[in-house]
């Protein structure tokens, strides 16, 4: 009997899918049997129950009467906070070290290379623990705090900073936030006009910038917000007022940022070296110095090459923020995989939520990257 190639392909597809389906069913049978054996059931009901634990560091209000779902949200926000802080720091440090690695000065170049290799070749968890246990735990007590700047205190309980407090007596605080949002949008728009857009359309510029500025001023004025400065002050054994940045956050932030910056430094170096040699020769023919060539000619071109691997480093930082569980920084893994799992025993559900969060993040980022790549390809670069 002779089968056509297409028919064979179809049979193979059906066979493959059947195999996967059988495996899935077998796993499902095992899981349900084991759950029954332990008297557990697969359900997300626990999310609505009171969490009955407190979270020491949070961006939104939370107390032990709130639900597990809100605890997860607190954890997620803490993950976002540390990831954003680490990404910004890692980019600044990484790009600086990347340029050091390209320096004509051998002393600077070799030393930077040594540091980069040292950071790259030691485990990330070890670095986080090092910052936490060796550096931050050795800081003085609250009474003997370091005071690097006025109203800024550093001690074993963390970093205490003065904070701006906004209060709107008539409950229109959201208007004040809208004003701030408009201001940020104005800044971003201005930066885009300055650095990205080559040809400025004056009328559009005035219309958009003026509109945003007007929204900012008017909504700030209507909100009648009262701004006050809250300073940290020593009361008994601890500080009151201001913002407290807990040592767990600092350790994780520094640990993630330094580790990733070593990889970013290498990426930047590689991308700059990949810029065609003719560009450098042309720049030096125009009389540009090393620093100018780097800043004006090579880095802008290297940026095109470096963006995709840089974004994957950002993803790595975000994934590695789960190391927070080792030092009890309350990010999503610590809150759900640590405390919630311990209290409820709902292992499968908590892991599904965490995996869901990270898979969603990955899908969003890769969709954005595809758009970026198409954009770059359309422009004819890279």
């Amino acid at each position, binding site marked *: 009997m002779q089968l056509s190639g297409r028919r064979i392909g179809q049979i193979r*597809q059906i066979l493959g899918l059947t195999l*996967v389906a059988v495996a899935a069913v077998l796993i499902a049978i*095992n899981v349900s049997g084991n759950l029954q054996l332990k008297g557990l059931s697969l359900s997300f009901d626990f999310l609505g129950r009171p969490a009955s634990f407190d979270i020491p560091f949070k961006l939104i209000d939370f107390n032990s009467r709130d639900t597990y779902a809100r605890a997860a949200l607190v954890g997620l926000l803490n993950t976002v906070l540390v990831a954003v802080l680490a990404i910004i720091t890692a980019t600044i440090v990484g790009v600086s070290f990347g340029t050091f690695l390209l320096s004509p*000065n051998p002393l600077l170049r070799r*030393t930077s290379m040594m540091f980069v290799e040292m950071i790259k070749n030691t485990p990330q968890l*070890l670095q986080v623990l090092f910052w936490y246990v060796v550096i931050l735990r050795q800081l003085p007590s609250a009474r003997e705090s370091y005071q690097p700047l006025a109203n800024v205190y550093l001690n074993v309980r963390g970093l205490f900073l003065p904070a701006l407090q906004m209060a709107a007596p008539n409950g229109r605080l959201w208007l004040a936030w809208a004003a701030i949002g408009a201001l940020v949008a104005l800044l971003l728009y201005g930066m885009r006009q300055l650095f990205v857009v080559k040809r400025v359309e004056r009328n559009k510029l005035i219309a958009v910038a003026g509109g945003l500025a007007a929204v900012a001023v008017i909504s700030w004025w209507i909100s009648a917000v009262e701004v006050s400065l809250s300073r940290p002050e020593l009361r008994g054994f601890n500080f009151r007022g201001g913002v407290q940045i807990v040592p767990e956050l600092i350790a994780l932030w520094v640990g993630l940022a330094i580790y990733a910056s070593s990889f970013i430094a290498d990426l930047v170096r590689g991308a700059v070296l990949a810029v065609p040699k003719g560009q450098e020769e042309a720049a030096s023919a125009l009389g540009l110095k090393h620093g100018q060539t780097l800043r004006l000619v090579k880095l802008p071109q290297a940026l095109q090459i470096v963006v995709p691997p840089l974004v994957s480093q950002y993803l790595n930082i975000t994934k*590695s923020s789960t190391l927070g569980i080792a030092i009890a920084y309350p990010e999503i*893994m610590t809150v759900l995989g640590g405390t919630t799992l311990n209290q409820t025993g709902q292992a499968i559900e908590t892991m599904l939520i965490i995996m869901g969060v990270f898979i969603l993040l990955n899908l969003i980022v890769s969709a954005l990257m595809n758009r970026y790549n198409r954009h770059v390809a359309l422009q004819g670069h890279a």
Partner: protein
Amino acid sequence: MQQAIAPSRSLTSMMKSSLKATFGTPLNAAISIVMLAFFATVLPALYRWGIAAASLSGADRKACIDGGACWVFLRIRWHDLMYGSYPPTEVWRVNLVAVMLVVLIVGAFLKANPWRRQLVILLCFAFPVAASVLLLGGVPGLPYVATRFWGGLMLNVVLAFIAVAGAVPLGLVLAEARRAKDRTVRSLAIGFIELWRAAPLVTVLFMGIFILPFVMPRGFELNKFVSVAVVLVLFNSAYMAEAIRGGLQAVPRGQFQAAEALGLGFWQARWLVIWPQALRMSVPSIVNTAIDLFKDTSLVIIVGLFDMLGAVQQAVRDPQWLGLSAEGYIFVASIFLVICSLLSAMSKTIERELDPGRRE
């Protein structure tokens, strides 16, 4: 091009050019002075702390009086750091496996070695069997040592080796599946690979400890070591698949056509023609993935296995050695640094060997 010019330069001109690079412009001179000042302050202090004023002999922390590093505690805890709770009388077995591993890797790496191919085969097939027999025991003459006694550096190396040895074949299959003509196979492979790559390793290890036992048939007991090893293999197979896919893409089309022209079937062509070339070309990326994996094995302390970092974590909690954490972390960091730097230097050498035309 530069290599051709370098030998003709005289010593004085070389000194001149390096002086010019270091102090040529005001900015460079300023940078150099700052760097030199940095070394002049840091290096002597480091030398005093780590060597001159450090203590190594003695039995407890009373021996550490000079204000330098207290290496005593590492000497006392040496067994924990290297072998965990492995029985002290059986430690020779671990050492023997370590010597075998180092000899095989170095032998397989050296280009001048006429037995290179045989050593690679030994490393891939005979060594894992010999190592498991030696480490686990349970045969006449070798008492059984359960995996829960394994720890320290040994655990890091064993877990990394198992993960690489398991992930490379699995990654090869996944990489082939990702390139398959069949859409179903391709999307299944992509789904599997991207799922693991999206997950943080901490979460993956938790899934190994808390979810894997649920997936197993009733009455099938899994210990922590096996659970961790299984998820490490699965997790890394996704990364290995990406490393090997690069190698598969680098095999010229002509090789596939030539294999077909010789009348080789799909699997014969893969086994005899394509895979040997693809794997050879992926060695550098495989080694780089293995380095990341080796560093990441220290994460197992989060799920309660005691590797080298775990031994330090335990030691710094011991009231007798409280406050000596810096020494412990620096020691573990240096071990990782040495091993990973050597592996990465090897990977770079192999890369050059595979592609001699490349400029570096």
